[in-house]
């Protein structure tokens, strides 16, 4: 996993909010050109980690390198300009503006001309399946539509790395099935993707590598199959002693099969 130079290199990031250690000495290397993911129970500090990486919070300690350059302490907009874009778990459309105008704001990061940015917005909208809703008010979109809009705005900036914060949350299974190929297609264009995701179906089918966060600390990493078997991970999600019981159960059924 750590062969090629990572596009994002997080080294010993920590952040404390009052009495809460939201991130504790987190180190991870995100490989370029792949889809990787970050999972963990509610309140594990996943979104905080995204905010620390993208400049919305300043870490108390540690360093973030993006494409080899130290970006710790830079403002979100400066990090976005360097090619790393995040989306929001709670979708943040520019309400009152059309879908086309919303996406164009992203396109303007690299395109000065208004006409060219609007054209690019249409292009991107079609890619994510919003082509038929270009003139709709963004506030009138369904939840699934808004998630697509978050994806589209990020994509329109022509980023090198996108951090998706639960783009699949709140979608029904058929909508999830529709969005998964969209995310894959983004990766196939050469954009690196880091997902925060609760939908395990998506984590398993999309990502090649997963980090597991619990109470602000990384407790496991590896392929999704590996980490879901990891006893620490099972305990983090299901409670103490659960891994042991599951192992016993598995042994019992295996023993029964022998007889």
């Amino acid at each position, binding site marked *: 996993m750590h062969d090629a130079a990572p596009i994002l290199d997080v080294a010993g990031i920590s952040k404390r909010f009052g009495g809460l250690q939201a991130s504790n000495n987190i180190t991870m290397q995100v490989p370029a050109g792949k889809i990787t993911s970050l999972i963990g129970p509610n309140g594990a500090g996943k979104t905080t980690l995204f905010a620390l990486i993208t400049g*919305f919070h300043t870490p108390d300690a540690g360093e973030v390198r993006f494409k080899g350059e130290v970006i710790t302490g830079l403002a979100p907009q400066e990090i976005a300009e360097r090619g790393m874009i995040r989306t929001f778990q709670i979708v*943040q459309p520019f309400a009152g503006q059309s879908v086309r105008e919303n996406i164009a704001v992203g396109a*303007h990061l690299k395109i000065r001309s*208004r006409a060219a940015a609007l054209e690019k917005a249409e292009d991107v909208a079609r890619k994510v399946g919003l082509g038929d809703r270009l003139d709709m008010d963004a506030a009138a979109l369904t939840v699934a539509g808004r998630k697509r809009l978050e994806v589209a705005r*990020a994509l329109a900036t022509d980023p090198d790395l996108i951090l998706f914060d639960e783009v699949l949350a709140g979608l029904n299974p058929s909508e999830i099935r529709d969005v998964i190929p969209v995310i894959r297609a983004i990766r196939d264009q050469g954009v690196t993707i880091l997902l925060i995701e609760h939908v395990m179906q998506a984590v398993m089918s999309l990502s090649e590598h997963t980090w597991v966060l619990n109470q602000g600390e990384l407790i496991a990493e590896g392929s999704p199959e590996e980490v879901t078997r990891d006893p620490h991970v099972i305990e983090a999600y299901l409670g103490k002693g659960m891994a042991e019981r599951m192992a016993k159960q598995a042994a019992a059924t295996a023993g029964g099969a022998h007889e």
Partner: protein
Amino acid sequence: MRQLALLGLVFAALFTVPFVVESESWRTTLIMTLYAALLGQAWNILGGYGGQFSFGHAAFFGTGAYTVAVLQVQFGINPWLGLVAGGALAVGVAAFIGFTTFRYGLRGSYFALVTLAFAEVLRILSNTVPFTGAGVGILIPLDPGAASLQFTSKAGFYWLLWAITLAAFLTAWWIGHSRFGARLMAVRDNEDAARALGVDPFRVKMRAIMLSGLFSGLAGVFYAQFFLYLDPGIAYGPAVSVESLLVPIVGGMGTLFGPLLGAVALHAVSEVTREVIGDLPGISLVIYGTILVIMVLFAPRGLSGLVSRLTARMRRTAEGDRHA
């Protein structure tokens, strides 16, 4: 492009008005309406497109007005130069207020209060320092002629105002059709989302307040030359600030034609009330306040919002008739 064509058409029509209207009192009414549209558009650039509700646009207006007056009276500098200096100084005041407020991320009512405080500070200052004439005010000597920016006919003033207003409206059009404008509106609608997409809210707001201050300052220069008298209450008092924000709120914030519609509507109303009630002191503020409440309650998107809603409904009924 259709919007730009319409804008051209409207301003071409406005240009010809002095040829048609000969009565000086009617010309004054038209001047005051256009002047309200200018004040409103200046506010609209920051408040409507940028969502930063200033309650102290008098700070820019008064600076423009006092600059041209003081330069003439105290230093004998030609008011055409004063026009440039007034605009520039208003931009400077805007940059200072913008820097001190946006730097610390003041938004909403906090921003409104701080802008109001700045205007009040300037009002008190101009009331005490001697070179503004302090509380007595400052009188620009009558010197009719285009060279001294005082015209013998109201038509001359009208065309000067027309040119400044056209520039303000063209700026507003540009905001609606440029990267800067897209970023400004993005910051207005969701600052965090804008930042995540690479927009620097501070820079965007600074540009907006400086443009807004420029046109408010030029309106002040025009006012000083037109009435030839200023005192602290006129220049920096809350009346200008209120008119600046009332016009676009009534007409439609963040729209190109909103300030024009608002100015026409407000002046029509105040003319009518003057006919009916007479010159009761303070009555116009009562009327304005009532209008503001009604607009905010029933037409939060202003007259232009009302117009687009009506046209949409008419289109729907027309289609319904066709289907029936």
